[in-house]
């Protein structure tokens, strides 16, 4: 394919995709030109697929066919829209109406009433988009989307990721064309340096510098690799980008190949992401078919191809040297740095390794220029960051905000606050390597430096919100259990240190802790930080240290008073029946698996603390609220 042919496809399909960005009359006018009166976008990301979006699409397609509407209404399966908690999600353009929690039955109504007769089915819409006076907001005007700025996610939930033409229609592969014809490799590196883009995998190393080192390395064979081993539990940014916009990664890696002088790329992706792998395979196939990958790309004489390698469930493989060892077919153990991958990486050759989100920004930076990107964000952290918002938050999902946005804005405005009237307790960023941010720091702007300054880290983008029902000692035990499982065992500080730290936490949560344990934890943690081989061990103590820093009272309460305020640590709590409230219905006694509850009918019952196994069945069964957990 030549650049002229690329442009022809773009011009042909541009309007079709543009309809999804315009709403109301403007969109309707354009829609007429495209031949499709309406377009229905259904999310095909992992979240919505799990809530049944496949059945919704099937019902939609068969109903449209039945009604003879399949020629005038286009159904598009997209990547993640971001509001995973409301899935399956369905949007109708040009109106921009947003149907949430769609069902096959609901879809039949939408086809009948809305698509056929033009009457929006209001009661099936996301309730925030419907006003009291009956008017309807497009999705872009909701609190969840308004404050977001979608750069890395620009095509997620907009295009069909399985159709390369839709990516081309959004100026896809134009950056590659520019790099191949108008820019020198040095200019590409300079653009990235000027843009201020930093690694989105968590460490925040300037991307331009990485490219400069890889480009400067001597070697006949070099490699480009993409880290899609998103192991941080509760994080799904990279998965969503791979599922929603796979060509952006392919384009960026090809640009990287041309810049540093590599002809082979590898994408190392978790096997736990079957949808992402499938979409990537389709995208790679289409890119080859269109001459955008393989030999003589865009008729420029440049050759580049990409191979997918699957992980097999090892968290440590997200660390760059371990990832490369794994691609080489070995146990995924890290190796000491230096030498850095840019000098001696994959198969001993100079290798450029970036994370998915980092790559997804690059084609746009090349196309729109470094100044455009650098105009967003803060002094030291430019651009935007994608977060996977999860835990105790109303709008669970994927959000992208400019750097410098405060946690409060993300939690209260975009996230819609904490559900069930509970109080915010802490936000956790950076997963098992990061730390907890307490309520007093909720106004901290999100950028690399500010988060490090308060003992947490940017991390790859997992943002877990916790409320008063979460015990912070238990949470750090959870993370330590995770690192104990995932420590590869190569170096002693991590292998033994994580286990010892975990034992201290188990001691404390079981009521056997002593005050001096806290000092021992800190001492051990500092040794691990300074002497572990890779980032996994160096950062494993962070969850403990940051919770001790901000929630020391809670640790002391566990140690001195043998008490867990949140009511999570089983061995520290007990159940009691309030005699005044108990009606003697016997329901609890009949359901108690340990026969720990005794009493006669219509008389208050009693729990035998020695027999009680603290399963909580009695509390959840009691209709009178007579059983309390202390």
């Amino acid at each position: 394919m030549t650049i002229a042919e690329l442009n022809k496809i773009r011009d042909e399909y541009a309007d079709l995709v543009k309809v999804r960005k315009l709403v109301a009359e403007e969109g309707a006018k354009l829609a007429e030109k495209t031949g499709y009166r309406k377009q229905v976008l259904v999310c095909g990301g992992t979240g919505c697929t799990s809530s049944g979006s496949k059945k919704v699409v099937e019902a939609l397609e068969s109903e449209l066919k039945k009604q003879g509407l399949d020629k005038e209404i286009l159904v598009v399966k997209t990547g993640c829209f971001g509001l995973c908690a409301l899935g399956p999600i369905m949007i109708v353009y040009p109106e921009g109406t947003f149907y949430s929690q769609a069902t096959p039955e609901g879809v039949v109504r939408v086809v009948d009433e809305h698509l056929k007769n033009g009457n929006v089915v209001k009661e099936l819409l996301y309730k925030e988009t419907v006003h009291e006076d009956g008017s309807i907001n497009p999705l872009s005007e909701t609190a969840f989307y308004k404050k977001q700025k979608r750069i890395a996610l620009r095509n997620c939930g907009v295009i069909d990721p399985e159709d390369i033409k839709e990516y081309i229609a959004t100026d896809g592969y134009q950056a590659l064309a520019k790099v191949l014809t108008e820019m020198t490799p040095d200019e590409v590196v300079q653009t990235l340096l000027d843009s201020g883009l930093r690694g989105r995998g968590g460490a925040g190393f300037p991307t331009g510098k990485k490219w400069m080192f890889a480009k400067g390395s001597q070697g006949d064979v070099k490699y480009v690799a993409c880290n899609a081993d998103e192991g941080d539990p509760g994080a799904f940014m990279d998965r969503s980008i791979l599922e929603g916009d796979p060509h952006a990664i392919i384009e960026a890696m090809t640009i990287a190949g041309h810049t540093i002088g590599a002809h082979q790329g590898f994408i190392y992706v978790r096997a736990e992401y079957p949808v992402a792998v499938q979409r990537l395979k389709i995208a790679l196939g289409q890119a080859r078919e269109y001459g955008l990958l393989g030999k003589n790309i865009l008729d420029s004489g440049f050759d580049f191809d990409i191979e997918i390698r699957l992980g097999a469930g090892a968290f440590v493989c997200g660390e760059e040297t371990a990832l490369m060892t794994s691609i080489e077919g070995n146990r995924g153990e890290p190796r000491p740095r230096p030498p850095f991958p840019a000098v001696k990486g994959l198969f001993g050759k100079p290798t450029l390794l970036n994370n998915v989100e980092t790559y997804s920004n690059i084609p746009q930076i090349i196309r729109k220029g470094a100044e455009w990107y650098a105009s967003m964000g803060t002094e030291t952290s430019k651009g935007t960051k994608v977060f996977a918002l999860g835990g105790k938050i109303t709008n669970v999902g994927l959000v992208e905000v400019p750097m410098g946005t405060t946690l409060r804005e993300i939690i209260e405005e975009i996230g819609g606050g904490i559900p069930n009237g509970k109080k915010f307790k802490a936000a956790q960023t950076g997963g098992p390597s990061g730390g907890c941010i307490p309520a007093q720091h909720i106004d901290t702007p999100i950028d690399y430096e500010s988060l490090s300054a308060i003992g947490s880290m940017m991390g790859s983008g997992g943002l877990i919100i916790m409320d008063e029902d979460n015990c912070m000692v238990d949470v750090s035990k959870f993370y330590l259990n995770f690192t104990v499982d995932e420590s590869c065992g190569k170096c002693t500080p991590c292998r033994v240190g994580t286990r010892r730290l975990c034992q201290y936490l188990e001691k404390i949560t079981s009521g056997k802790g002593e005050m001096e344990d806290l000092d021992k934890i800190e001492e051990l943690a500092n040794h691990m930080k300074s002497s572990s081989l890779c980032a996994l061990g160096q950062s494993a103590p962070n969850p403990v240290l940051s919770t001790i820093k901000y929630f020391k009272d809670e640790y002391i309460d566990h140690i001195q008073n043998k008490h867990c305020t949140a009511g999570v640590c089983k061995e520290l709590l007990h159940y009691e029946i309030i005699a005044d409230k108990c009606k003697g219905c016997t329901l609890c006694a009949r359901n108690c698996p340990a026969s720990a509850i005794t009493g006669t009918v219509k008389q208050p019952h009693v729990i035998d603390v020695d027999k009680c196994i603290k399963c909580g069945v009695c509390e959840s069964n009691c209709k009178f609220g007579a059983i309390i957990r202390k």
Partner: protein
Amino acid sequence: MNEKTLSSFKGTDAQEKQLMEVIEKHRDQQGGLMPILQEAQGIYGYLPEEVQKMIADGLGISLSEVFGVATFYSQFSLTPKGKHRISVCLGTACYVKGSDKILEAVEKYLGIKSGECTPDGMFSIDSCRCVGACGLAPVMLVDEDVYGKCTPDQVKKILDSYLEKEGGNN
């Protein structure tokens, strides 16, 4: 290998032939051992010592090297899995929403622990770290089916539905 499998290895000739083709396909690929193990597990359902030996011989490397890689990654299993594989997500988003209680309920109902298989070979339980469906937390998977916003009291009904599908033989 001290976790010797209870049932002895029963590989068929057809499976072996398939495995040999897989080994042949990846023989000259740099770092081909991982893809081979992945495909071998697809063929046999797990990676018993016999299969690892065939791979080692096929690639001309030592059994210990194959064993080292097979035991490093949590997705490779040296023991057979149940006909229906249950995995409960213990990722952070699911954990803060109480997925440990789901796992407990599953273990209690089936009378086995995580990592084990029921004696009739019907179910095996594993915990996993994040399937990326955090919007639906807590999440449990049975084979490919995802059960989101799960509660401990739904567990019995969900698992029973798989037994019913088997025709009530159990």
